[in-house]
């Protein structure tokens, strides 16, 4: 019942800094980062390791509190967004629970929000179909390949039908072929659910292929160095990876790293 202005962004971060203190040293992981992400947008946080992209995502997820700066997620604080279960999160590793079969892993968040059993089952079946793993619903996670496990993790994140999907290098542990196939699958899923996606990656082609906008971060200290619009048409197809526009965007982004 909240009234939101049409053009107010879903995620707003202004002047966010993050400082890790160890015994003797202080590491500035993020320095005054300001980003605005629109509702329904697919954005990537791109950069080399140490640029603070994962830190930025974890601040959005309320898994970390920034040292300074402000963050607003659909009109409230990050904590309110977490408590209201406004986001689903996918980690670098699938983080599936070993003792739960595939379907039960997907229904886990639905048990949390107190959904009835029939409704849980129904949603899980639908999601299993969406990720193409209906046949595997009664298997244990270890019986699945790494790519399949990560698909289950995505389905689990989508189960609560979140407004925001936070993804922390979800495909980085996979081989190039699985990764490209899952990129396309992710886009097809996203076109159906339409949530806002924040996708952390260190792969330039992955960021370009997936995103509406790419936030380029640079390290030491982590800061936002550039925002690149990706005007490639949707739906995006595998062939686009060979188009000159795709290559041009990749080389533009790569150049922005050479200065640092």
């Amino acid at each position, binding site marked *: 019942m909240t009234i939101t202005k049409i053009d107010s962004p879903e995620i707003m971060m202004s002047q966010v800094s993050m400082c890790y203190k160890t015994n003797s040293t202080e590491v500035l992981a993020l320095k005054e980062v300001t980003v605005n992400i629109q509702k329904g947008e697919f954005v990537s946080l791109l950069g080399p390791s140490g640029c603070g992209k994962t830190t930025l995502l974890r601040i959005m997820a309320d898994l970390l509190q920034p040292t300074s700066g402000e963050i607003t997620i659909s009109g409230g604080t990050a904590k309110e967004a*977490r408590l209201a*279960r406004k986001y689903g*999160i996918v980690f670098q590793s699938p983080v599936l*629970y070993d*003792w739960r079969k595939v379907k039960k892993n997907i229904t886990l968040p639905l048990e*949390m929000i107190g959904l009835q059993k029939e409704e849980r089952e129904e949603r899980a079946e639908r999601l299993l179909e969406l990720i193409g793993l209906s046949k595997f619903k009664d298997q244990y996670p270890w*019986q699945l390949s790494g790519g399949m496990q990560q698909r289950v993790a995505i389905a689990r994140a989508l189960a609560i039908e979140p407004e925001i999907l936070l993804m922390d290098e979800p495909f980085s542990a996979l081989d190039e072929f699985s990764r490209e196939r899952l990129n396309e699958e992710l886009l097809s899923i996203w076109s159906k659910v339409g949530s806002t996606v924040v996708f952390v990656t260190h792969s330039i082609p992955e960021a370009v292929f997936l995103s509406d906008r790419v936030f380029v971060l640079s390290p030491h200290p982590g800061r936002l160095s550039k925002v690149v619009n990706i005007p490639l048409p949707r739906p995006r197809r595998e062939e686009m990876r060979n188009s000159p526009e795709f290559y041009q965007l990749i080389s533009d982004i790569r150049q922005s790293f050479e200065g640092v």
Partner: protein
Amino acid sequence: MKWQVYRSRWVPTIMLVIGLLFLWEFLSWLLLTLDVPLAQSKVPYIHELVITFTQYSGTLFSEGSVTLANASLGFLLGAVGGIVLAILMSLTKWLEQLAFPYAVASQMIPILGLAPIVYGIFRDEQLARILIAAYTTFFPVTLNMLRGLRSAEPSSLELMYSYAAKKWTIYTRLRFPQALPSLFTGLKIAAPLAVTGAILVELMGATKGLGVLMLRNLYYGPSHNYMFWLTVLFAAFLGIVSYFIVTVIERIVTPWQPEFRKSGGDK
């Protein structure tokens, strides 16, 4: 194909057991012919043991079941106590700091000394046996359960955090199932200990049980030598059975554990 696999696995084992039995028989014969004093008390003939067993198996089973029943009751009591203590310790740090040194210290008291004290206090052989069995059980269970409850990975916990899960939900959905493999490790150590504990109290003075049988046959000297050996072996057998029962339950409760996976895991 399958039969060959089984055969290749079982044949060496069976051969080894048969070989050992023959070696034992030979050793027994050797000691007797060399006129070693109390030869049969040292290495008794296996065939004599088998004969004695066929004659007295009824006694062994009836006394053994008394011991096992008391050990089981004590085991259950100790396991439940251990689990509850572990949960409380995992919930509150100060309770762990308070209770843990005492739990460790309690294990330093020799059961041989504790048993007559407990018996002296309660004056009830049944209750004393159950309590000692519980006492030997609770520590390995507490220790392993506590470690299991703490073994949840940070990312698994973060997932719960992202769901805004309540503390109790984190226990039921994550920490308890995660702790099960560890708990079973503790139970597997504890089960035979409970049997040993129960027998020990029986040695202190009881009217029924394997310990009584053992002691009586020891007193009667060489004439009851085979029976004494049988009770010792039967006590060991009960320990193995108790371990085996826990293993079977573990397989049913936690079929997802890596060691129970049929095919590697890579697929």
